[in-house]
């Protein structure tokens, strides 16, 4: 085994998406020499014939065959001769559907790739590099607006007394709001999205409530994030509330604890704040849904049926396993192997018939699966806030020639066979002509940065509590509050963007207003 093969093997071993490739004997294909490849429209060789053959034409043919085999909408890809496109990256951009949804948005907004070493640089679950504040980027171009949505305890940000509701004004001496040159925006990106510990950055913030200016210098470090926080009871103890930020591996135990706490408090209603939860492990979403709804509502029912393209009705084309629906999970799985709780331990449940979910456009993927999964078993979901992102899709990260590709490979349907929510879920009274979300009971309310999360007077939480009492939504005080998001302005100035995640392929994303609260 030579060095490059060893490297490939390690990379393969650490990516499920590649594990199946290993099974097919990828190392054998390395031995084949330069290949003359003929392209015939509509005829496809197996992707294995081109796997890890790192010449541009071979890579493009691998992408073509792999997409034909696994892309969810493979039959909507226009088959083009790979030899006629200059680069591998450019060819990959073409290997997606160009269809649009009924609302006019791109059907596929999630087609992307990353250098494999960058993708493989995982994080210890729950650990990020940073300062300990999470920002909501309302407008990435000038005039920019970004507000701290919450801070992590025991972090540089919390030690500097920064809280939700501080707007970024300046980063390392650069005007965050109005910077117009790429050089200045690069400085902002480097400061705002540090790639390693020790990065020192000076910030100026302004409070959205008091207009106080706060100048601080923060040093980036490894931050232990808390996926589940603010577990409490409200309304004389009858309503449970908690903030659920991520379906990451370390969230399982605190979720278990949160539901146990609320169960012991005999709550009769539950509000889960998933406004900044972009998803993660799907099975964890099924655990949350079970802990809300209980055995009687979920027994032997499907939380989500995973569906690949019609070439793979029985077996998962990536893992080779027989396709089995994800049921409502009633036991502790052990994502992070917690020593105090064994896998198989029965989960607590609140046995509720309805749940209130606080959402924004950052509520995505596995979080949306909770909504869809519960609706599939007739649990009433009451949605307060803004429309969700609309991502009923998933993929396996798949490496070829040191690039990891993400192409939509599966979608999910609930117990009723429903899974069409590419425009997200939105409260019933949302006014939004740009998207066609699935309407859900509840109220459209703009995210309220003037109050801390968990504060009963914060607009989303206050609306949920009021809706529970009256069944009515507040009269909108602004277009933003009726839409559930603050309209943003877009300009042709450089974007502030998390360069740690920037992709090779342009994602050609439509940025509807709903995505820019």
């Amino acid at each position, binding site marked *: 085994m030579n060095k490059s093969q060893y490297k490939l093997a390690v990379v393969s071993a650490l990516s499920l998406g590649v594990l199946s490739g290993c099974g097919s004997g990828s190392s054998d294909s390395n031995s084949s020499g330069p290949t003359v490849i003929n392209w015939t429209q509509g005829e496809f060789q197996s992707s294995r014939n081109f796997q890890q053959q790192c010449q541009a034409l071979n890579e493009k043919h691998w992408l073509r065959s792999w997409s034909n085999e696994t892309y969810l909408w493979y039959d909507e890809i226009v088959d083009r001769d790979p030899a006629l496109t200059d680069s591998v990256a450019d060819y990959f951009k073409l290997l997606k559907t160009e269809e649009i949804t009924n609302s006019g948005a791109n059907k596929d907004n999630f087609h992307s790739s990353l250098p494999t070493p960058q993708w493989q*640089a995982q994080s*210890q679950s729950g*650990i990020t590099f940073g300062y300990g504040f999470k920002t909501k980027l309302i407008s990435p171009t000038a005039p920019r607006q970004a507000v701290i949505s919450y801070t992590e305890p025991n972090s540089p940000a919390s030690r500097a007394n920064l809280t939700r509701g501080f707007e970024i004004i300046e980063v390392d001496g650069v005007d965050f709001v109005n910077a117009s040159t790429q050089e200045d925006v690069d400085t902002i990106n480097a400061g705002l999205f540090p790639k390693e510990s020790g990065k020192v950055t000076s910030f100026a913030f302004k409070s959205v409530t008091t207009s106080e200016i706060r100048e601080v210098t923060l040093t980036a470090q490894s931050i232990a994030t808390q996926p589940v926080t603010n577990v409490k009871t409200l309304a004389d103890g009858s309503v449970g509330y908690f903030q659920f930020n991520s379906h990451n591996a370390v969230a399982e135990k605190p979720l278990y604890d949160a539901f146990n706490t609320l169960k012991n408090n005999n709550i009769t209603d539950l509000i889960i704040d998933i406004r900044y939860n972009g998803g993660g492990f799907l*099975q964890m979403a099924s655990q949350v849904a079970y802990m809300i709804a209980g055995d009687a509502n979920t027994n032997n029912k499907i939380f989500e049926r995973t569906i690949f393209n019609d070439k793979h009705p029985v077996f998962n084309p990536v893992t080779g396993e027989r396709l089995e629906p994800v049921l409502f999970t009633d036991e502790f799985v052990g994502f992070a192997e917690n020593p105090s709780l064994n896998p198989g331990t029965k989960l607590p449940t609140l046995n509720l018939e309805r749940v209130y979910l606080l959402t924004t456009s950052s509520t995505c993927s596995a979080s949306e699966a909770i909504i869809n999964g519960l609706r599939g078993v007739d649990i009433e979901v009451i949605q307060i806030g803004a429309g969700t992102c609309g991502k009923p899709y998933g993929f396996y990260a798949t490496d070829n020639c040191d690039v990891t590709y993400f192409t939509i490979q599966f979608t999910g349907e609930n117990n009723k066979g429903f899974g069409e929510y590419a425009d997200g879920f939105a409260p019933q009274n949302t006014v939004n002509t740009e998207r066609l979300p699935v309407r859900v009971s509840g109220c459209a309310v703009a995210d309220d940065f003037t109050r801390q999360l968990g504060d009963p007077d914060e607009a989303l939480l206050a609306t949920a509590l009021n809706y529970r009492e009256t069944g009515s939504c507040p009269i909108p005080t602004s277009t933003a509050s009726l839409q559930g998001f603050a309209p943003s302005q877009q300009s042709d100035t450089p974007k502030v963007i998390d360069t740690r*995640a920037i992709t090779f392929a342009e994602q050609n994303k439509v940025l509807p207003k709903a995505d820019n609260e």
Partner: protein
Amino acid sequence: MKSTFGICILSSTLLLGCTASADKPTPKLQHALLQEPQSELIAQGIARLMRSNNIAVAKDVFMQRSLMVVDNVTKTDELGNPIMGRQLNMPDRFELLIKNDLCFVRHLDSKATEPLPNVKCKVNNK
């Protein structure tokens, strides 16, 4: 799984090689804990193991437990949402091991193993 298996064999061979070169019987690989926080060296070791860029780990990694879990949930797209927001597979796990006073980090599923020459660890008796 050929490549994964290959790693397993390679790792085992390397470790057995260590054993064979020793003059006296040596203990088997055992789970370990760090003697002092050395998160930078752990992060570098995992990065070498994975042939990847830098890894984010907690300051107290492997101080209380011999196992750590990594996931990609923090990797976000340009809208700030996780790329892998709907993950079907389980997360990757790594363990800290010790043998002959040398510490190793090992990927639990593949058994790919990386020595950590400057790391000070001890047998985990918990």
